[in-house]
C-alpha cells in the first residue's frame, strides 16, 4: 500500500479546524483562545524540528547523538512534570524528583525492550530507540505528574491528620500510607484505562500511524501491545518510585512532617 503524502494545503485545512475552535472559544469567553493558538503553533514547530532531527539521526547512527537527544527529552519531560504540580518541592527536588523517577524507569525499560524484546542491531538504532523512549516518557510524564500532584496537595490539605497519626505513634510510612496509595493509583489509572479500552473504544496513535503508513495491521497491533505493556509498566514503576521518594522527603530524619519543603 502506498502512503498518500500530505501537502501543506492538506495540513492547512486541518489547521483551519483548530482556528475555528479558537474562534468559538473566544466567542464563548473560555479564556483558552491564546493557549489553543500557541499550543497549535508549538505542535507544528516542535514536530517539524523533531522530524528534521530524526532525519539527521537516522542518517548517522551514533550512540552519542541518540543519548544526547534522549537526555534532552528527559529534561524537558522533567520540566513538564514540575510545571504540572500545584504544590511542588522547592529547590533541586522540584525538578529532580520527577526527572529521576522517569530516568530510572523509562530509560531502563526502553533499553530492556530494545535489547531483549525487539533485538535491534545496534540496540540504540534511532528509528526504534527514539520513538520508543518518546512514547515512554510522554506517558510516564503524565503518570508521575498526576501522582506527585496528588501526593503534595493531599499532604498539604491533610496536615492535621498526618500529624495526628504521628502523635499516636505511627511511623511516617503509615502516617501517609493512605495518601501515597491514592497518589500511585491516580498516576496509574489513566494507563490501565487505556489498556482496557484499547481497540474497543480507541485505536492507539502509534498503531494508527503504522497502519496509515502501510504496515500490516497485525504487525502494527503487535507493536502496539508491546508499547502498551512497556508504557504501563514504566508509568507504574515511575509513579511508585516518585511517590515513595516524594513521601519520604515530606518528612525529615526525626519523622517530622516538613510541608515547608513544598513551594
Amino acid at each position, binding site marked *: 500500500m502506498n502512503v498518500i503524502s500530505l501537502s501543506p494545503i492538506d495540513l492547512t485545512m486541518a489547521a483551519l479546524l483548530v482556528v475555528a475552535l479558537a474562534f468559538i472559544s473566544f466567542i464563548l469567553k473560555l479564556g483558552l483562545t491564546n493557549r489553543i493558538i500557541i499550543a497549535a503553533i508549538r505542535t507544528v514547530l516542535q514536530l517539524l524540528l523533531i522530524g528534521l532531527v530524526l532525519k539527521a539521526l537516522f542518517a548517522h547512527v551514533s550512540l552519542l547523538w541518540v543519548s544526547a537527544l534522549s537526555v534532552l527529552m528527559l529534561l524537558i519531560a522533567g520540566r513538564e512534570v514540575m510545571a504540572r504540580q500545584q504544590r511542588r518541592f522547592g529547590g533541586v527536588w522540584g525538578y529532580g524528583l520527577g526527572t529521576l523517577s522517569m530516568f530510572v524507569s523509562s530509560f531502563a525499560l526502553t533499553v530492556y525492550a530494545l535489547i531483549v524484546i525487539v533485538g535491534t542491531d545496534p540496540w540504540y538504532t534511532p528509528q526504534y530507540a527514539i520513538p520508543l523512549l518518546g512514547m515512554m516518557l510522554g506517558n510516564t510524564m503524565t503518570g508521575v505528574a498526576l501522582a506527585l500532584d496528588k501526593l503534595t496537595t493531599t499532604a498539604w490539605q491533610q496536615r*492535621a491528620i498526618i*500529624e495526628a497519626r504521628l502523635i*499516636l*505513634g*505511627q511511623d511516617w510510612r503509615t502516617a501517609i500510607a*493512605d495518601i501515597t496509595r491514592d497518589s500511585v493509583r491516580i498516576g496509574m489509572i489513566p494507563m490501565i484505562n487505556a489498556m482496557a479500552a484499547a481497540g474497543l473504544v480507541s485505536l492507539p496513535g502509534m498503531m494508527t500511524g503504522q497502519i496509515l503508513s502501510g504496515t500490516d495491521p497485525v504487525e502494527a497491533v503487535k507493536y502496539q501491545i508491546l508499547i502498551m505493556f512497556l508504557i504501563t509498566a514504566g508509568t507504574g514503576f515511575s509513579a511508585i518510585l516518585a511517590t515513595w521518594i516524594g513521601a519520604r522527603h515530606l518528612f*525529615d530524619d*526525626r519523622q*517530622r512532617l516538613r510541608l515547608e519543603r513544598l513551594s
Partner: protein
Amino acid sequence: MATLRLEQLQVQILKPFNVKVTSEIVCLSGASGSGKSLILRAIADLIEHEGEAYLDEKKCSEINPVLWRKWVGLLPAESAWWHDQVGDHFQPVKDDYLDKLNLPAGSLDWEVSRCSTGEKQRLAIARLLQLKPKALLLDEPTASLDAESVKRVETVIKNYVDEFNVPVIWVSHDNEQIKRLAHRVFKIQNNEIKEVKV
C-alpha cells in the same frame, strides 16, 4: 515517677527556657499566638527546635521519634480522624476510658462525621489515654466541652496522673480551671516563659 525535663528548649521567637515537670499538672497560659501550642509540638518533636527534652533522663534526640511520641502523649487542640468509623482509630484493647468520659461502649461504632465537636474531643482523649503515655501534653483539651464534660475530663486526667505518676503540661486560657487543676503555672509573656503564682 516519670519526670519530663526541658533544657534550654527554644522554639521560633520564644526565649530558651528550662522546666522540670514531675508527677503533677503544670498549666501553661498566655495570649493567643504566644507559642503555647508550639512548645507542646516541640516537646513531641513534631517541629524543629533548639534545646532538648528528657523523659526520665532519656534524651528525645536519642530516642526513636515514633517511640518518643508514644511516650509523650500530645492532644492537639483539634482532633483529627482519618477512618470513617470511630472504632477504627482505637487499639483493640479493653479499657474503660470511654465510660469514664461518659461515652457509651457503642460509640466505637459511630461514624466520625456524625459526632459533635465535644464528642470528638472526648473520643480523642480516650484514644490518647488508651496508649498509656508516660507524659501528657494537653492543648486546651476542654475548650469545646460543656461544663459537665469539662469536670469529667479534669477528673479523668487527675486520676490518670495519680494512678501512673505522669507529668502533665496543660494549656489553658481558663483561670478558674487553672486554679482547680494546676500544681504550678507558667505564663508566656513577651516571648518569655515564667513561672507565676497559681
